[in-house]
């Protein structure tokens, strides 16, 4: 009985040690490389610290969306990328996600996941060739996504709403 208790204590200490080691090893790279993915307090801070000139901010937001973004994640390496997450004023759920990055590997589609895409059409967004997707998210909520590339930067805007507000937000980014 006593040896079993010691065994239990030993394994609990081992688990604690593994968790601490993982946390330390997760933190270590941020000491060596300052511009890897991390949280930022404002868009200005991202622009000043990472010097991402191509970053575009919408000038228009529907009143149902909280400003400033609830999360701003950005990185300079291995490639510049910024992710802005906006919540609904009333429900506090994620309702709008804007991702901008130089790699196709960077995408935030899983933050507002589509259950079904009903229409996927080319869309002229102020002379840019964009793709507009319309469909539904969880609980049959209407969802839409607009994506386009400009220079090396790929922008994807996903919103839990029909496409009308989404298009207005996107157009306001290009003014």
């Amino acid at each position, binding site marked *: 009985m006593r040896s079993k208790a010691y065994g239990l204590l030993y394994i609990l200490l*081992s688990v604690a040690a593994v968790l601490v080691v*993982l*946390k330390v090893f997760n933190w270590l790279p*941020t000491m060596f490389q300052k511009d890897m993915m991390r949280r930022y307090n404002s868009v200005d801070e991202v622009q000043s610290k990472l010097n991402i000139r191509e970053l575009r901010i919408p000038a228009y937001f529907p009143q149902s969306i909280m400003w400033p973004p609830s*999360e701003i*994640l950005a990185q300079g390496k*291995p490639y510049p990328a910024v992710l802005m997450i906006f919540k609904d004023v009333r429900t506090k759920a994620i309702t709008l996600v804007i991702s901008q990055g130089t790699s196709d590997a*960077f995408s935030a589609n899983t933050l507002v996941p589509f259950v079904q895409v009903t229409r996927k059409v080319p869309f002229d967004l102020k002379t840019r060739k964009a793709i507009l997707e319309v469909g539904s998210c969880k609980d049959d909520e209407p969802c839409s996504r607009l994506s386009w590339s400009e220079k090396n930067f790929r922008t994807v805007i996903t919103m839990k709403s029909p496409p009308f507000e989404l298009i207005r937000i996107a157009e306001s980014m290009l003014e």
Partner: protein
Amino acid sequence: MSISTFFGSLAGMYVAQSFCHSLVASVLMDQALRAWNVNDPAIKQRFRLTVVLYPIFSFPFYQAINPARGNALFRLNALFDFNRWLNMNLWGGVSFGHLFLIVLAITSLIFLFQEMIPILRHTLESRTMEHEGASREPDPFIESASRALSIDTPRILIAEDDELHIFSTTGKNAIIVVSTGLAETLTPDEMHAALAHEIAHIARGRRPLVLAAFFLRMILFFNPVALVEFRRVVRNEEKICDDIAVSLTHRPEALAEALKKFYAVSETPEPDVKPKPLFTPVPLEEYSYNIQLDGRIERLVQDPQRSTGGQWFLLASVFLIVACINYFIV
């Protein structure tokens, strides 16, 4: 394709995460075996098999229950994000991810040349080879041992060879081949112990757990942790067959003595070979084989305590802890 693009893809995430998951599983399973002082090789083998097989399914399973695991927000809040290391620039254009890929490539080559090709060659040879040698006289011990393990009595062939060899083939008509060198070296008790060990292999070959594990483990051919753990599984198999042999002969010291004779041969330098320089490394395979024999002899002499049960609960508990931790490792 750049390193960051590869490790951002599903295939890259599978490679990176299965490595991390197997590493965490290996460390915690090892600690659990130590914590509860588990000596039974059959129990140890279950723990090791868990480490080999679980990472094959962990990543797809976690992604299925939460597809958002791969996104930047989840990664930022994760317990450990391996991509931070993989994308870290070391010097010039070389990142830690490049070094990791080299490790994976070396592991894949070791798997190919030390596991895959020898096993394929052995399988092909055992299908086509006619085993030659004189049949050994019927032995009541072999018949009773085979009955005890519910298998047909295997044929025993004596092959003309001065080296010490004994091996068995599985399948419908199992055969045990013993070299004349071995037959002359071992006492009757030691020979019974060695034959009982081979009969145990034949009996366990009917439940091809290790073989099934090997076929599944091939998916993780690139994973160095899976490579090491699978070798431990195979070593445990030898110890399990030792235990079965002892249960049949009731003479652990006879099997220990037989193994010592193998050990003595592998330690004795060949007379016509020049002595090796002092710092010439012993070939890894040979070193590993000797360590294994040494360990097997030691535990037979010490007669370790057998498991008292309840180990399934222990295995399930540790597995749950491992699975929970690994969910937050991306």
